[in-house]
């Protein structure tokens, strides 16, 4: 992990945020604020929440800035790939097979004579779509199931915990080979569905644990003593205090889903040609690694940078949301 730059202002933000979670720290900072003191008569104060504190931290974190820029660029080219490439990923010329870089093809041509640069750019769309949608599905399904199990406990909790155990026992790649090999549809949806099916137990465990931690807090008991309904307890008091770990794990998982999509496509059960995916290209290029290594290296490099960017983003978000880890 890169060192956090030390700045006095940042230190105050840090201890202030510590107040939200590691509560002892805020005492020293706020003790001198006497009630009715001069600070209250100043200009209108901007409320400082955990999220605004986290954002202040993130803005100063070079890891976050770098990974966010990479991700923004990826999102941009997956929405508008035509902006940086004029060709089509499906226009191939066997005469140019395995050729090195040339005009309009800075990354050269692959075994089928397709422009590696164009295909790498277009492959980002598949990866980002699969990563984002699978993560959304997993996060929503997992946190709802895990959160409810953690909140209501008893037999719901036992049922969910045993079910997640069963899902954890399924090997991901083997399960993908078995389940996806019977699917004929050549779209991203079966892959996303498979990831949600196997991915939700991970998030549900995290959500369950953090809901159980949050619901034991006195402020939840206080709200209950006021007669608050279960939905109010969950939405107003528990969810906002339990969501941070889910966001962190989901962000890191996003990178692994992108890698998993490439793996499944490489194995021939994810997306299949003529779809464009980094996994397909890596698979197609690997027999020619000695003659045309560029056809393998560019999609592999793009994949590695993408996965790394998401994992680093998740790390940065975790550092910002959980000051205890510093």
């Amino acid at each position, binding site marked *: 992990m890169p060192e956090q730059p030390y700045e006095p202002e940042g230190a105050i933000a840090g201890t*202030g945020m510590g107040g939200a*979670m590691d509560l002892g720290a805020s*005492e020293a900072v*706020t003790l001198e604020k006497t009630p009715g003191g001069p600070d209250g008569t100043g200009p209108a104060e901007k*409320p400082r929440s955990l999220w605004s504190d986290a954002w202040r931290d993130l803005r100063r974190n070079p890891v976050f800035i770098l990974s966010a820029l990479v991700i923004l660029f990826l999102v941009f080219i997956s929405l508008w790939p035509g902006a940086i490439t004029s060709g089509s990923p499906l226009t191939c010329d066997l005469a140019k097979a395995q050729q090195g870089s040339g005009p309009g093809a800075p990354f050269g041509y692959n075994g089928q004579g397709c422009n590696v640069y164009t295909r790498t750019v277009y492959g980002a769309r598949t990866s980002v779509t699969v990563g984002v949608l699978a993560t959304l599905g997993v996060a929503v399904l997992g946190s709802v199931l895990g959160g409810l199990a953690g909140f209501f406990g008893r037999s719901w909790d036992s049922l969910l915990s045993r079910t997640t155990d069963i899902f954890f026992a399924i090997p991901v790649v083997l399960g993908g080979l078995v389940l996806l090999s019977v699917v004929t549809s050549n779209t991203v949806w079966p892959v996303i569905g498979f990831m949600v099916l196997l991915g939700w137990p991970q998030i549900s465990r995290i959500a369950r644990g953090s809901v159980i931690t949050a619901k034991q*807090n006195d*402020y939840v008991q206080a709200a*209950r003593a*006021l007669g608050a309904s279960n939905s109010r307890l969950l939405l107003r008091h528990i969810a906002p205090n339990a969501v941070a770990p889910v966001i962190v794990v989901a962000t890191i998982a996003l990178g692994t889903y992108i890698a998993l999509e490439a793996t499944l496509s490489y194995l021939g059960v994810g997306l299949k040609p003529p779809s464009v995916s980094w996994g397909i290209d890596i698979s197609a290029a690997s027999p020619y690694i000695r003659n045309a290594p560029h056809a393998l290296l560019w999609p592999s490099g793009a994949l590695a940078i993408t996965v790394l960017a998401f994992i680093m983003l998740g790390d940065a978000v975790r550092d910002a949301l959980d000051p205890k880890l510093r």
Partner: protein
Amino acid sequence: MSDNLTLPAQQGSADASSPSPETLLTVEGLTKHFPIYGGFPIRRKVGAVQAVDGVDLSVGVGESVGLVGESGCGKSTTGRLITRLLEPTAGRITYAGQDITHATRRQLAPVRSEIQMIFQDPYSSLNPRQTVGTIIKSPMEVNGIEPAGGREKKVRELLELVGLNPEHYNRFPHEFSGGQRQRIGVARALALNPKLIIADEPVSALDVSIQAQVVNLLQKVQDELGIAFVFIAHDLAIVRHFSQRIAVMYLGKVVEVGDRDSIYNRPRHPYTHALLSAVPEVEIDAEEDSRERIRLSGDVPSPIHPPSGCRFRTRCWKAQDKCATEEPPLVQISGNRGGHLTACHFPEDPTTEDRGEDIVLDPALAALEDDAAK
């Protein structure tokens, strides 16, 4: 002490312990057993923690009742049972003539606004994601109460009442110190103009210099607004300062209850004697210590397997065979004033004067102390 005959209970103990004109809250035989599950492969109930076992208590309108005892004696559980945060195993809770022992959330709704709670830990009792304004406003939101002038105005009034700057409306709890946070908790409890506040060790998590502020605030609130308190604490000095009537708990039971003067100056139960003798004294009499000294040995027995008969007998210097077989009832024994009830077969003299010789149940501990004194 053969002259200390135990009188039969002439009236319901709850009635007898309430000299206050009008009773607000009555608790009879309140019991909470937390089940323990174990066993393999099929989990089943293997026992129960008898956290509260037959507590009788009553609180009059505007009265402050102190609940004292060692850690783990069931004080906080009793408080949480009264606010119905926990479901009682047995017994009866009556609030203003209404049985709320097993009332559902809907049935409780009208009572909720009248019984409020102040929590021990000011750090975990405020939602870190909500502003002070939102926190204090939420009781009114939940109960659909729209005070004259709007909720925000009421919140600002409450902040002022508890001695906080109303301008701090939009701040988050972590921007406040422990004492200020506890004031926010008090303001939240006052938001609905309650008639009864359960204060669960409201100052024990605070710095000693802040404790007085919060206690004085609570006292001011009690005097000005006429709110009844159940004040749970293990600090006997603060309870003495705050409560008109005091109940002493030991291992899930009330062992002695009475007005402030009876408990502090004329205690009868050996446990109350021991508890009072443990209060540190600021004025040290150089010539002779004028108070009795009692040093108990060991820990409070496990509430999973409490001793038979009198629960204090395992640490009591007056215990006899009768104590193991027969549970002493909570009654007014001879020599007690009205409303002063004691659950003991062999009560002590009603005094806290030095008894000439210290009661030492743990000689090793006493030897250590003597060594340290030398």
